C-alpha cells in the first residue's frame, strides 16, 4: 500500500479531488514517486519515470515545505472549475529537486515574493452534489511569528 493512500476512508467527511495526490496527515504531504534508475522525483506518482522511461519507480512522500519559484493569480474560473476566484497559482520548488504546479492560498501576487518559504496545505475546492467538500492541495506562505 502507498503511504497514506488509504487514509481518506469512507468515514472521512471530505473527498480528495483525486486519490493518491496527497496524504491527510498533519501536516499533509504530496504523494509523488522516485525513480531508482535516474534518481529523480516526480509528481503525481507514475509507474514509469516521466524523465528516463524506467519502470523502476516507487511512491515517495514529498516535503511539506518548499520555496516559491513563480506565482500569479487566476481571476476567472477556468473550464470545469466550480470554486471561488480569484485564487493564487504558482510553482513551488521542493528540496527533492522538483518544481510543482499548485494553487496558492494567497490570491494577491503583490503579497508574495521569490524564494518565499511555503508549506503544503489542503483546501476545499467546492462542495459536491452529495454535499461532501472536495479537497485539493495548495501551498501557503509560512507565517513568520
Amino acid at each position, binding site marked *: 500500500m502507498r503511504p497514506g493512500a488509504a487514509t481518506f476512508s469512507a468515514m472521512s467527511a471530505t473527498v480528495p479531488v483525486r486519490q493518491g495526490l496527497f496524504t491527510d496527515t498533519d501536516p499533509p504531504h504530496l504523494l509523488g514517486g522516485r525513480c531508482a534508475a535516474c534518481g529523480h522525483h516526480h509528481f503525481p506518482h507514475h509507474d514509469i519515470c516521466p524523465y528516463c522511461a524506467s519502470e523502476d519507480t516507487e511512491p515517495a512522500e514529498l516535503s511539506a515545505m518548499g520555496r516559491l519559484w513563480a506565482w500569479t493569480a487566476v481571476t476567472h474560473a477556468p473550464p470545469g472549475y466550480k470554486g471561488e476566484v480569484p485564487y493564487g497559482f504558482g510553482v513551488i520548488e521542493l528540496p527533492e529537486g522538483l518544481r510543482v504546479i499548485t494553487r496558492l492560498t494567497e490570491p494577491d501576487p503583490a503579497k508574495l515574493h521569490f524564494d518565499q518559504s511555503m508549506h503544503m496545505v489542503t483546501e476545499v*475546492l467546492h462542495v459536491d452534489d452529495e454535499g461532501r467538500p472536495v479537497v485539493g492541495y495548495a501551498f501557503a506562505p509560512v507565517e513568520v511569528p
Partner: protein
Amino acid sequence: MSDVEVAGVGLHPFGRFEGVSISDMGVTAVRGALREAGVGKGGFQAAFCGTAYGGVATGHKVLGALGMTGMPIVDVEAGCASGAAALMLGSKAIGAGQYDTVVVFGVEKMPRGIIRSSFFEPWQEEAGLAATPAYFGLRAQRFMQTSGVTKDHLAAVVVKNRRHGAHNPDAMYRSDVEAADVLASRVVCEPLHLWMLCSPNEGAAAVVLRRADKGTSARHGAAVQLDSAVLRSHLPGAVLSESTPMAGLTDDTLPTPTTLAATAAYEEAGLGPRDIDVVECQDTDAARELMSYEELGLCAAGGAAEMLDAGVTSVGGRLPVNPSGGLLSKGEPLGASALGQVVELVHQLRGEAGARQVHGARVGLAHTVGRGANAGVVILRR
C-alpha cells in the same frame, strides 16, 4: 532531396465570421493558393490539413466542396503548430520524390470564450489547474525575473505588433494602441493584461508546394523556396513546458521545443539566425514573443528587451518580427496560424506586403509553439 518551392499562397482573413463555415474559409484559402499556383483539379497528388478543433474529416470537406478529392488527404493536429506539422509532412514528401505538388492548408473556427479542451484531466479541471492563461502568466513572470524584461516591454510588444497589424487588411484588429491603454486593460493573470493576450478566432491559410524542377508559377516572378520545415515536441522535465506537466525538475538547462526546432531548421537550411531578414513568431502573449527572440537565437539570453527597445524588431529595423501584426493583431485560429505566417512571409519575400513591407527581405522564419508541446520552425528564401 528535391528542392521545394512555394507555388502559391491563399488566405481567408482571421477574425470572427458568423455564418461562414470552417469549410467555406478553407475553400477560400485553398482556392486562392491553387489559383496563384496555376493548379487545377488533378494537379496535386496529396493534401495535408492542419486543424485542432475542426473535427472529423476537416480537410476532406474543404476539398470535397472544391470537387478535388481522390488523393491521400491527411488531417493533422499539433496544437498551435498544426499548420507547421502539415507543412513539414507535405514538404518532406515532395523532397523525397513521393509527390510533385501538394496542397497544405490550415483551418480553424475556435469556440467562443474559454476553450474546454480535452487536454486536461477532469480532476485537474475540478482543482482549477486547467487555467491556461495562468501558465502563460507564470512563464512571463519567470522570464521577467531572469531577463530584465518589464511590464513596459510587454506593453511595447503589443504597441509594435498592433502598429504593424494596422497595415494588414487580413488582421482582426487593425488599429494602433498606446502603451498606457495596454497597461490599463484588466489583469488576466499577473503580469499579463488582457491586451497582451491574443484572441482565439477563425480563419484559414493555404500553400501549394511544388518540386522546384517542375517549373515556377507563371504569375509570380520571385519564386520562394521552402528551405526547412521542422516540427519538434518538448523534452521531459521543464515545469512550464507547453506540455503542461503537473511538476518538473529544477533544471534550467533543458532546451525548449522552439530551440530544438530552430536548431534543426537552421541546420536543414544551412544558415543561422544572422541570415534571417524577417520573422513571424508565436506571440500568444507579449512575453511569448520576447522569449522567442532568445529561443530562436535571434539574440543572446537576456537580450530581448534591448532588441525591442532599439527598434530592431519593428518594421524599419534590422530584423522585423511579426510585420503581419502577429497573433496579437490577427488573433489565433490554431490550425491556420502557422500557415498564416507562411503566407505573410511569402508576401514579404515577393515584395508584395504593401505598407508593412520589409524592404529587401530575402530569408524569412516562421515560428509556432503551443500545446502538446509542439514547436514548428519554417525557413523560406527567395
